């Protein structure tokens, strides 16, 4: 049966005039009425009359499910009111086309119900992924947490302190990681990557490749005896190359899982670790293994990467030893870092003068056209840490705008000013090596006027966050990413936690820079949305 009547919602966001749309429909011999916005009491009253009078022949021209919050289905649970999304149509002709198609269509085909899997895949074991996994697991869902690195914890595990409270990052994160590992509903697949994702919401088929650690996970007790005998020394990537480590190592002291791993690329096959291990846990013949999972939903919490400032060559990163990134600075001041927490330059010199340069990569059309949000407060925090280490240190922050807009952030900014941190408006043009090799910052003070040069012992570049690079192996449709590579939300305000692909959710910096607190909120929020979706699908099937 084809329909001949259309009720048009006078949504203020329609790209066209609803009355004009009605007129055009009438010309085509279709009865068309314009109702007040259907989500208002007046519109809803109109709609109720329609459903009461057996609305079968009526078609509703309104918005899509990402906007209407499910109130159309709630209004007529049995009748399944046919709703066409004209709100997203850019012009009258498109809307007309969409309506004409829907009018011609026969009964909307029933979407065949698929058996709904109550297991969930969380991709990424940073603080956002861990939070989502814990909330889902606590709600009784089986969770697979896939982490590409040797340990969960993400970037937060590498930080020394967190803003605005300056509390120790790993101390507050560590117990959460242990909770994840010990949770009976969470299966942690670390050192693993996804090799294939197929299927749809309610039933995704996922293949996971687990890389070999060359260490038996159930035999290894994390005693690190093997690392003491290993003769191969390589730079620790986890410490950003600032600290040496052995070829067989435990990635960091609070790692979860706390197991040793051999990096086979560097292994000389000397077998000394094999002999030293009292548990016979080491086997150099392990091969990658595969896991096949079926999950109802996927939470992407893959995080973001710090911007590599090498390409912003005017700042001399990589050429001048005293120029470091803010993440390197975190490792340097951290008690577990390369200097055991002494604030010294990579060349071992004391730091008496320190400068932070904001917006490195961020707010720069050449690199990242957006603000990374976290860096201002992070630099102020690091300035405070520097003063704790070296109270006599002269600290300067070069900024464009100080964007401390988060709970307690402004207070930290005020404290830093009171503690004597100098703030200079104006981003430096370049950093050059002085005669003694120290960084010399050429700047222009936009407030007080005048150019100047500041020789420092260490210049810290507050680098922005850029999108994760490699796409995930979705076989069919993949969640949409924007031009910069960040995952797009289904709707920026109403559905910030859903990707554009149904059943795939987002948490944390994979959809744009944000701080820890927001990431944790998103983890919990994504968990709620997953539960909602799976409940919904289970209800249908």
């Amino acid at each position: 049966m084809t329909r001949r009547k259309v009720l048009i919602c006078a949504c203020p966001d329609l790209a066209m005039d609803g009355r004009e749309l009605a007129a055009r429909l009438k010309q085509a011999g279709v009865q068309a009425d314009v109702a007040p916005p259907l989500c208002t009491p007046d519109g809803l009253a109109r709609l109720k009359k329609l459903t009461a009078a057996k609305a079968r022949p009526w078609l509703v021209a309104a918005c899509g499910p990402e906007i209407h919050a499910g109130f159309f289905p709630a209004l007529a649970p049995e009748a399944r009111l046919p709703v066409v999304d004209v709100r997203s149509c850019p012009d009258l002709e498109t809307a007309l086309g969409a309506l004409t198609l829907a009018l011609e269509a026969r009964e909307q085909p029933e979407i065949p119900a698929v058996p709904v899997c109550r297991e969930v895949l969380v991709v990424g074991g940073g603080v956002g992924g861990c939070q989502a996994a814990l909330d889902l697991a606590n709600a009784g869902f089986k969770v697979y947490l896939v982490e590409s690195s040797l340990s969960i914890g993400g970037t937060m595990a590498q930080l020394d302190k967190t803003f605005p409270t300056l509390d120790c990052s790993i101390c507050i994160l560590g117990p959460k990681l242990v909770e994840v590992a010990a949770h009976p509903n969470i299966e942690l697949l670390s050192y693993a990557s996804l090799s294939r994702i197929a299927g749809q919401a309610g039933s995704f088929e996922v293949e996971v490749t687990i890389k070999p650690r060359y260490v038996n996970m159930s035999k290894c007790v994390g005693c690190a005896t093997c690392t003491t005998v290993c003769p191969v020394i390589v730079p620790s990537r986890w410490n950003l190359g600032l600290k040496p480590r052995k070829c067989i190592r435990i990635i960091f002291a609070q790692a979860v899982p706390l197991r040793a791993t051999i990096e086979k690329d560097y292994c000389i096959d000397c077998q000394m670790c094999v002999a030293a291990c009292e548990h016979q846990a080491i086997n150099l013949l392990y091969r990658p293994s595969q896991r096949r999972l079926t999950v109802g939903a996927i939470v992407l919490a893959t995080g973001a990467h710090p911007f590599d400032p090498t390409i912003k060559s005017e700042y001399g990163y990589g050429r001048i030893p005293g120029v470091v990134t803010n993440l390197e600075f975190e490792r340097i001041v951290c008690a577990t870092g390369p200097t055991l927490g002494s604030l010294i330059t990579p060349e071992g010199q004391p730091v008496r003068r320190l400068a932070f340069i904001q917006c490195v990569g961020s707010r720069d059309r050449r690199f990242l056209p957006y603000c990374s949000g976290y860096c201002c407060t992070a630099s102020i925090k690091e300035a405070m840490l520097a003063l704790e280490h070296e109270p006599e240190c002269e600290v300067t922050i070069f900024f464009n705008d100080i964007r401390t807009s988060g709970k307690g952030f402004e207070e930290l900014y005020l404290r830093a000013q009171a503690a004597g941190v100098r703030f200079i408006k104006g981003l430096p043009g370049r950093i050059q090596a002085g005669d003694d090799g120290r960084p010399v910052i050429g700047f222009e003070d936009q407030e007080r006027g005048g150019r100047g040069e500041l020789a420092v012992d260490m210049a810290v570049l507050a680098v922005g966050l850029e999108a994760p690079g490699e796409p995930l192996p979705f076989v069919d449709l993949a969640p949409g990413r924007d031009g910069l590579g960040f995952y797009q939300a289904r709707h920026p305000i109403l559905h910030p936690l859903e990707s554009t692909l149904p059943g795939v959710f987002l948490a944390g910096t994979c959809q744009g820079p944000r701080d820890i607190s927001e990431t944790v909120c998103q983890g919990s929020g994504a968990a709620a949305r997953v539960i909602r979706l799976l409940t919904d699908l289970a209800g249908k099937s």
Partner: protein
Amino acid sequence: MTDTPRIGLYICHCGHNIAGVISPEALADAARDLPGVAVCQDHLYSCSEAGQRDIAKDIKQFGLNRMVVAACSPKLHESTFRRLLAENGVNPYLLEIVNIREHCSWVHAQEPAAATVKALELIRMGLAKVRDAVPLAERQVPLTRSALVIGGGPAGLRAALDIAHVGIPVILVERAPVLGGMANRLYKTFPRGQSSLSLINPMMAAVTLHPGITVLTDSAVTEVGGHLGNYRVMVTQARPRVTQACDLCGECAAVCPVKVPADPELGQAPRAAIYRPSPTAFPARYLVDRLHCDRCGLCVPACPRQAIILETEGEIEPALEVGAIVVATGFAPFEPAGSRYEAWAALPQVITTVDLERRLDPQGPTGGRVLAGGATAEPQDIAFVMCVGSREAEGNRYCSRVCCPTALKQALELKALLPQARIRIYYRDLRAVKREWEALYTRAREAGIGFMRAQVRDIRPSEAGQVVIEADQDLGQWVSADRVDLAVLAVGMTPGDNAPLREVLKLPVGTDGFFLESHPKLRPLETVLDGIFLAGACQGPKDLAESITQGSGAAGKILALMAHDTITLDGLICAVDPEKCIGCESCYQECPFQAVEMMGEGKTRQARIIEAACKGCGVCAGACPSGAVIARGFTDEMILAQIDAALAVNPEKKILAFCCNWCSYAGADFAGVSRMQYPPAVRIIRTMCAGRVHPKFILHAFARGAGQVLVSGCHPPGDCHYISGNLRAQARMEKLWPKLAKKGIDPTRLRLEWISATEGRTFQQVIQAMAEKIAGAKAKREKGLKDWGGTGKRGKGEKGETQGPEDGLP
């Protein structure tokens, strides 16, 4: 519960980690015959499967009913061994882990003999403690499967929908007559310019239509009792004078003779005393304005459905039972009246961003025209003044976060509406911290909107219906005077009037007045009260997307809670012995969680612990003058027995250290992990919180001749895992120092330190300093030195000042 202890004692080699310094075999030989020990073994790795199998066999063979494991920090494997006990039919709380790795072998690597002596004493302490251990039950708290959401703005709407969708009944309480909150006052949203109506109204409609959601508008939560899983809530709802029979025909308003003047800020045109509060928001209804209605009664016969009863008085007070609560009470825009901006806001050419939002709305009170007060032509010179009521030296010190993107959005809308207008923005820092906000900033600059980094000094009237904005320009440092037709004050967000609810819920607020989350990073949605969650701008300034995210997040927390029939809590909580309680209320006053209630009156008045609310910090036990509070797992008897065991030999050469579980004990662990060496004189007693340490423990230790006593906890004010236990400890020590002096005990022998979980170095330095004091104690006594030296050194990253007893001394 006085079974004869049959203790299994297990000593772990931990490979060479322990055995490289201490001989576990020698330890086992020395400890085998200690009282209560039924069996003693050493294992290469006690935590390994082989070790666990051995232990399980022993439990059966020797009928063990207690266990001591001398191995690594309890933070690592306490849960492992608890599980092992439970699996073998022994209560998991009859276990003590003795830390001979992080606190012994790793930190005394150069002094194996002293380390072995210390390890044996640590084992004696563990044995002494475990002898007093009793089986503890994990608590099963029943759960009411329903939730209360307070506040019907975007965050509350989303939380209600996400919870109800899964089948958990929700009661949504809203103070205003309609849902929607501040979103009703928005015309368009940033960053995409979609109308607020089209985004928020569907959620309102869905909530209204949802069979699982009960909406109570015009209502306030007036009383909350109970605890996680079972909150009893009283709601007071004004009894409506227009019944549900109303079909919105409007006849009543047509005959009403009262005219209430327009309130542009609320977007209200002039109206009658009986009126519809919002044409678009839910629930749709007519209301009688009790303030303005003169009870003429004309409306009553005018109503074709007899829906009006003007005599209705009083309130309905539904009592609710819910398992959890979401607080989503939102914010109030900063009100210039009554502030230093009052004179500016009083000028007819000055409006706020909230006013402007209403004026931009074609459905709003001005029909979409933006006119400065009294003007007939559209303004041609428009300025936005940022940070009004935010980032002030006095008053609201915080940044309100959303004013920058709001002003950018409004400036672009004005530019579209009035292309010829010259628009500038006076800002301090332009804070477009989100990707799409920065894009708005770029678009605004491209659209020709001017940006001036300046502090506005004054806005004063000028001729020809204009105002002059006088500002200190930051760039170049000069004073500008700018004549404009319309000045828009970008007002910030304030917590609004949350005092009544604060009172009812006993929820703490931060210095900014917004509700305080349990932990800013790890528990941003939780409050210190279990089962009460925060969502949206009531916790701090946020935009719509962030508020809605938090609405979902709070729902997620509740769904996880409601997935179970009961809530399981660990057994380490406090209890009151009614035989000993004297009803002094010390515990009642000091409990950071309101987990103590006073029962009875007069002489029978006694304290009782609300088990479901108790977190087990033991702050109450540390305060109890009569020893009536039993801090399970850390009782007075256990701690006194540990002190006796620690000080049995050479007490004058010992440092007795009370370390809180979360920070200082972990800090000592960290010193171990980092292999920071310090003198072996220290004996650590773990408590959950520094606030557990009762002064009598310290007096007891000195009576036993302890050389030095250390009490250490998390850095104040914020690091304490029990809100303020560290401050309680500090207050007690400050009272104790002069008392010690009176008793003739050198008060410098008691030291209070804040040591965080990363401050291994601080721990090392403190112990070194205290050991030096013991070495020099005799000499000092002879010289009669009274000053407290310390080392003067400060650890890396140490936050607080070293606490000395000087303040407390006369």
